[in-house]
């Protein structure tokens, strides 16, 4: 039967994803939704921006993810981390031409961007020049230096973090550049019980982080990314995405609504999210889970109140519409 085919493949893929999540949860406790969102971004071939107070586990999450995929071998993913500071130059990211004494020519010394998983820590502390260089690379998947163009790795996943409270000495990302991130995830504090559990077992967690096992190969990730593209999206879901995106443009509380590119990104993320949840089709729950993360940072609100309510309202309207639909 035809219909069972994707199902079976989905089962094997979802097992792999489940393995990845379980592995990450050894280190990151009580953050399953965030882990899932990160993986969703990874599978949607996008990049993620994480924002929250220091010490909530952003960096640890990125490291864990990298550790779960990256390894020592040549076929394994390479993980790089850059700490963004105000004096960071684009060169420090992209790499630079250096003079080779032996060959008597300039050769290109690859920067840290040539990796599979990049953790760009505290991205908003770097100068706009650096930020835009990074974001351009994320969008283009290639680096142009002078006359030469260098392609990035096939699997290139950037995890950027930023601290909201450090207003002084920061260069906030312009909204046009925020658009390059598929999702913006608010990390948040864990619940009390989890927090106590973390305190009790911080030593083990530390050990886990140090000895994190690689559970998936890079090829697995690439396969999963391809599989995510095959997830089925019902027309009504697409309709809802369109409704939601268009509603943001027409809403009085929003000065700049979501673009068409946002819609495409949204659908990509929905597919990936469905796969992360072990499904070969998108349902309304996928929308509920990622809509805010995907759309919120793309919108320019007129005031604070709108920021807190508008998107949720629009979303809940679409959710209600979907839940009441009769589809067949």
């Amino acid at each position, binding site marked *: *039967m035809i*219909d*069972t085919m*994707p*199902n079976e493949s989905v089962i094997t893929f979802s097992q792999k994803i489940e393995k990845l999540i379980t592995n990450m949860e050894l280190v990151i406790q009580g953050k399953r939704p965030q882990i899932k969102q990160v993986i969703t971004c990874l599978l949607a071939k996008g990049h993620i921006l994480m924002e929250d107070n220091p010490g909530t586990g952003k960096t640890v999450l990125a490291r864990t993810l990298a550790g779960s995929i990256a390894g020592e071998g040549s076929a394994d993913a390479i993980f790089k981390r850059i700490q963004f500071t105000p004096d960071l130059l684009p060169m420090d990211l992209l790499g630079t031409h250096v003079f080779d004494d032996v060959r008597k020519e300039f050769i290109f010394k690859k920067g840290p961007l040539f990796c599979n998983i990049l953790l760009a820590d505290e991205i908003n502390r770097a100068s706009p020049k650096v930020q835009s260089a990074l974001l351009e690379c994320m969008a283009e998947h290639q680096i142009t230096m002078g006359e030469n163009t260098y392609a990035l790795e096939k699997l290139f996943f950037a995890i950027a973090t930023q601290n909201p409270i450090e207003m002084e000495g920061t260069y906030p990302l312009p909204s046009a550049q925020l658009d390059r991130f598929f999702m913006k995830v608010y990390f948040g504090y864990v619940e009390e019980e989890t927090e106590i559990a973390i305190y009790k077992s911080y030593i083990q967690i530390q050990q886990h982080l140090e000895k994190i096992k690689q559970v998936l190969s890079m090829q697995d990730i690439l396969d999963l990314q391809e599989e995510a593209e095959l997830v*089925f999206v*019902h027309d*009504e*879901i697409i309709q809802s995405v369109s409704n939601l995106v268009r509603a943001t443009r027409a*809403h*009085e*509380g929003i000065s700049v609504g979501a673009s068409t590119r946002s819609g495409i990104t949204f659908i990509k993320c929905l597919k990936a999210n469905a796969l992360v949840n072990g*499904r*070969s*089709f*998108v*349902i*309304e*729950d996928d929308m*509920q889970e990622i809509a805010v993360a995907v759309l919120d940072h793309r919108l320019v609100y*007129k*005031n604070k*109140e*709108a920021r807190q*309510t*508008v998107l949720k*309202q*629009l979303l*809940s*309207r679409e*959710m*209600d*519409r979907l*839940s*009441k*639909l*009769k*589809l*067949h």
Partner: protein
Amino acid sequence: MKTIKHISSLRFLAQIVFLLLPTSLIVFFALWNSNQYFSVLQEQWKTLGIYFSVGMLLAFFIYQFRLRFIPSFCVLIFLLFSGYKILDNYAIGEFDSFFITIQYLSFAYLFCVGWVCGWGLQRIRFFPILLSSVLLLICIIIISKTGLLTVSKLLQYLTPVVLYSVYIVYTTEALRNKEKADRRFWYLFTGRLILFCALLGMLFGGIVYLLYPEIQDRVEEYGGQGKEGENQMLQTKKDGTVENKESMGLGSSNNRNKNPEPLFCAHIENYLPGTEIPNPLYLTSFHFTKYDSLTETFERDTNFVYNDEFVPDPSKLLLYSTYVDSSKMKYAFGAKNKRTVEVEIYKKRLSKTAFIAPSTAFFVQPITVEKAYQKEFSSAYRSKSYVSDLNSAYFIYNSEDPAIRHFQEQRFEVLRKAKGYEDIDQRFMQYYTQFPSDGKYAPIKLLADSIAMHKQSTIDKILGVRDYFLQRNALGEKVFAYSDNPGIPGLPSASKLTYFLFESKKGYCAYYAGATVFLLRSMHIPCRVVTGFLTVDRSDKNKGWYWFYEDQSHGWVQVYFPEYGWIDFDTTVGNDDAQQSPTPDGTPPLQPPKPLLAMSAKIISVDTLRKLAEIHMQHMLYKDVEYTQLDENISVDVQVATIWKDSLQVPIQSLHKGDDVMLVSFAEKLKSFKPEKTAKELLSKFPTPVPIDEVYFLDLKKEEKKKALEKPTIERPFTYYIRTAFGVLLLLFICIFTIPFWTFTYFKYRMKSSKDSKQKAYYAYKAATFLLHQLQVARLQTTPLQYAQQIVDRRFGTQYSAFMIVFLKAKYANQLLNEADKQVIHSFYAPFQKKVKFHFKPFTRFVKFLNLNTFIHYFLLPPPEQNSKL
């Protein structure tokens, strides 16, 4: 969340019971009251009340939700208006369209008013205050329209409205403040309400009880006798016809309607003995024997047995049938100078039910109006009265006419010789000389004594009263004058009669008659007031014919003389303005020949060729002698007969076996016989077949049907309509409140009947969500799958999420369902419902299924962008 919803439904129910129900009742009451004074309402107060209640209920219900009043009301108005336009265009027939339009308009108005009330009660905090003030205003208008206001009537109108006003304001506030209602909500609230109502009732009752005398004074002062401009003698009935009032009040004015249309026309063959001067037979309607000092009204009294009143309803008698009753006449006529006078009355604007005749009547027979006059005269009857030759009420009027004067003198002479009252029954004397002992009438007694001084005979005392009214002052001016606007005394509690007699000295007939009765009764002369019409000889063009107009309604006095009976005396002084015929008298109708023989019978057979008929006779009248309960078969000759069906002449062929007919004969052949003791004897003498001149169809069945139709509408008591309205409301409530149940059943039915698995899954999902929604298992902000996983399955231990996964697959995926999925769908619902129901008590489930609020929210889409103002 859950509890708040629960309370809101409870509050809604409480609002319906405690706010809407009393409001409906009070509106019913107000409509019922106003119905008595505004014929616009056309006896439809109950229908109108239902319109109002429905409008109010609907609005109350609808405005719970986020609806703006002005747009929604505009939509309502628009709908009603388009309905009106449609009706206007499609109703067939002019009359129908008019009737339906009126109906519709009254519906629309009342519905809108109800709508506004419902909205106000739902949304506006101070609306009850407005509502009760409007109701009070209406109540006051009704009271001001009331002609004869008494304290009991005042209280009857005012009490419900006042009580309602206080009640509604209190209850609204109490309900509003009951934020945190719990299970004992009903118990506490009802208890408090009952206590409040009891206190209110006691307070109101106490005030009324303590202040009763003062209220009474005020009512006497301002309520008095009707309003300015009201005709004190006549009343206009709903069909536009006119008849004498059943009470005669002393008003501040008497509006004599100068309607130029005559009321009726009478043929009276009665002249003063030996002259061509018409004996002024005053036509009597009612006798007023009692005086109500509270309202200063003369009233009828049927308690006294021998009151000589003969008040039949001519409209209820069959054509040509007679009604004779002299059982109440004991004192009506003496042995001396007695005579029978026949009068024929042809009614124009006079009510069909009214009966007027010279005093004292004992016989009535409806007669036909000749065809040519049927448009002008609605009905006619013939009556007979016993009158005395001495009875001539020209007492003050026309007293300068020498012929009358001469006759009057003769009459007084005869009456002077009449016997005294010594032998008369004490009860009779007591009854007809009763006099209010109220102190304010004491001056009248003194006046009577001064008039009666040195006068021996009754007639001299009466003449003394006449002379008192006719007295002139030193300048030769008349002291007493006629006025239709006598005004009211300055002192509120004073009697209008004493005011008339001693101060204003002007008034209309009721004042003169009333004063005369008071004076005579204080002289111990039995007398009474009668009302009716006064004949005036206006022209001698048509001898014996008299025309009566509205301004000829009159009241005068009858005095009892032993041996002579009741004699009319009219003490009203001449009115120079009145007695002028507004229009020249019309042509009197052609008198139908007096039937010799009238028979009501059933037809047995008809021979249309020879024009003979066999009839079964039940009732016969020959030369005014009646034979009843007959069982005779005779044959009649209808060769020359004209046959009438309603007002149409029909051929003989339309006579059929079994028809009920009235046969009338004027034939010469029958003239020679004398009435016999039994009908059989008489019939044996008649020629056979009996010649018949006129045949009238008696549509007995139609009459019965009419009665059957009329009966229920007339005899339904007030409570019936309350019950009907209540029943309709109840039915409506039941219908509305079972809607959730039927919806649920529908989903389950569709689920069971679907063949397609996807369809089945959909309806199973619908039924499940509906059940959970109605049981108020809050979904909060979760998606259906999260709801199933996190809330439902955890709470009830069901397999809802397993089902939901399959359902979502069916809904969104492009794959077919496999066998395992189908199995999940099939086996999902029954155990699910069982488990869910297990968690709720049956009664809780029942109550929650009645909750319409929840029900509606199930279907509502989320409110459109709430913060659109941002």
